[in-house]
């Protein structure tokens, strides 16, 4: 346990600089986005009201008020979120390959630590989870700040103030923040199960190299099949015999099986088949 925590700390520190850069880009880009989008709205309002001589109320009627939802549609806002997502997806691979590739052979050191090798696997997964949740938390912290900025730039007559919960429910952000805590756990848990499956695919490749890629693809396909088996069987073989609630629990079980298999196979490969 102690070594696990130390490994997590070690893995986090290895990526921390780049991660902080990601956080910084997100903060900067989103706040600039709030200002740019608000200015654009006000500029249009000025044009319509003073040049086309349309009354204020009619402008609002036609173009709608400015609210945070408008901001969430801009590239300034969604761009950094997507960028962070892409970087983290790449890092799911890089977190393993950086120990094998390049000049250093840090994989030797990791595999010779006096701890079960699955600890390394779990520590790397924990690191990914921490980074993901950290970004989610940052976004939550940023929203009230950005709302304040919006209030500074746009006067109240053109503005609809929305509470954080309404903003978070907007289509773009709803994916990051599910409605209820249970869904949050389920969605992010599902995401982590996918990370575990990818980890195990990487270990297949690291154990058997080129052949391992084929094994990895087959394993991945099998995992997907197991995960979707309840849905597929219900739709194509049982003629929708199951009710959504029953299907949900079967899916949950299928997800847990996939997760357990990923960890168990990862454990087996690390212990018996891995090559440096």
């Amino acid at each position: 346990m102690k070594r696990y925590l130390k490994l997590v700390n070690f893995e986090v520190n290895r990526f921390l600089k780049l991660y902080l850069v990601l956080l910084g880009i997100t903060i900067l880009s989103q706040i600039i986005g709030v200002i740019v989008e608000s200015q654009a709205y006000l500029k249009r309002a000025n044009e319509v009201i003073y040049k086309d001589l349309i009354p204020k109320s009619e402008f609002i009627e036609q173009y709608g008020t400015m609210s945070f939802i408008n901001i969430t549609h801009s590239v300034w806002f969604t761009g950094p979120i997507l960028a962070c997502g892409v970087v983290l997806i790449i890092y799911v691979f890089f977190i393993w390959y950086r120990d094998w590739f390049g000049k250093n052979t840090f994989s030797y050191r990791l595999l010779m630590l006096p701890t079960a090798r699955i600890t390394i696997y779990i520590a790397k997964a924990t690191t990914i989870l921490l980074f993901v949740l950290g970004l989610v938390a940052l976004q939550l912290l940023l929203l009230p700040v950005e709302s304040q900025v919006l209030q500074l730039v746009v006067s109240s007559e053109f503005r609809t103030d929305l509470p954080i919960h309404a903003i978070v429910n907007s289509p773009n952000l709803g994916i990051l923040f599910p409605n209820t805590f249970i869904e949050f756990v389920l969605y992010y848990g599902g995401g982590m199960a996918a990370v575990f499956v990818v980890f195990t695919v990487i270990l297949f490749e690291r154990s058997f190299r080129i052949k391992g890629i084929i094994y990895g693809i087959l394993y991945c396909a099998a995992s997907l099949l197991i995960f979707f088996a309840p849905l597929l069987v219900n739709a194509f073989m049982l003629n929708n015999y199951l009710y959504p609630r029953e299907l949900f629990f079967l899916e949950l079980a299928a997800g847990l099986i996939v997760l357990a298999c990923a960890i168990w196979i990862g454990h087996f490969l690390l212990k018996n088949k891995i090559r440096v």
Partner: protein
Amino acid sequence: MRRYWKIISICLVTILVIGTFYIQSSFATSNSLNIGVEHVTGNEDELQNIVLYGNFSPNHHYLNQSFQMTNEETIDLTKLSFFQRVSGTGAPDPLEELIEKHKNFMRSKDLTPNQFFEDENAVVYAQIKDPYDLPVKDLTFEIEVLTKKSEDITAFQVDVPQKENYGWMRIVDVQVIDHELKVIVRGERAILRVYTFDMNKQQLVSDDTIASIPKVESSGSDLSIINDTYYSIQRQKYLLIKIEVFDKDRRYIDDIPNLIVNEFIVYDIENNQTKKIVKPNEIVESMDHSSAVHHSTVLIPSRTANGVEVSQYDIESDKWGETLSFDLSETKAVEGESFTKLMSGKLYTIHATTSGHTIVIGDLETGESLYEGKLKVTYQGAEQKNYRLYFHEIESVQ
């Protein structure tokens, strides 16, 4: 410990922020939108046992919240708990009730009320598998009957006669009269047919065409059931059928096509008889999906300057009765945001006026207004003036 301050602070901040967010949202959501009814006149008991469904947008904003309200509470439908959503089947209420009572019988069924019938003795389900469904199958009636007392399930299949004439078929209604099962079907080429089965012998007894669209060249046409029995699986005596034929096909042409046929037909399910409703034109034209049949009277609501008028047509005597009118205290209407429903002998109408929404409940037998109230909208704790509110369904619950 000092070496670990970075990771400890990342963890703490993350847990605190996400935790606070979800704790707050579980408290905050239930009262972000609240629609209350302010009493104007009449008996407030009328509001009991009805549920209104609608959508709300604050202050010229495209944020859209679907909600469900009673006189006691407003529920944000986007904020149901996860298990509430997973537990439901998404089926309309009467079917949810059937699922609760007859869990196994209801498995593997299309959950559309049109295909079900329930009375005190049995639950009947009919479906037609057509070549568009999987697995591919010829048009066949598949009928299942659950006898309530014994909980026995019997099932039988009958080929659709002359099935080569139809590409597809959809069930519009299922009714049981004594031991006769009537399945009313909308088929390809805009035809409405009824198939009668003997439930004891499990045989098709007869099949008839109820209505079909007259063939006019290069035209658009439509055949629809007006008193849509979608939410009802109970016994029903009449179907109201509307047939429209246009001189141009609406789908391909921008300018408004002319109606060349506009017919209304009442179909008496039990006696297998059809009857055309004869004009007056202005009433017939206002017939839409809010029209209903109560006992043997067709009720046709229409909006007037002062409120709502309901025309009455007696099917048996073939006569137009007296027009009921329900006046509203506030009459300046806003286009398009009103909703009317006739249900179990009562008129329910929500009227959008320049100063808000009014709900009026009227008695269709006496023509008297039973209740009038004003909707008061609060959103995030503040009373709202500028907002959009649409209602799309009113249901009565027991």
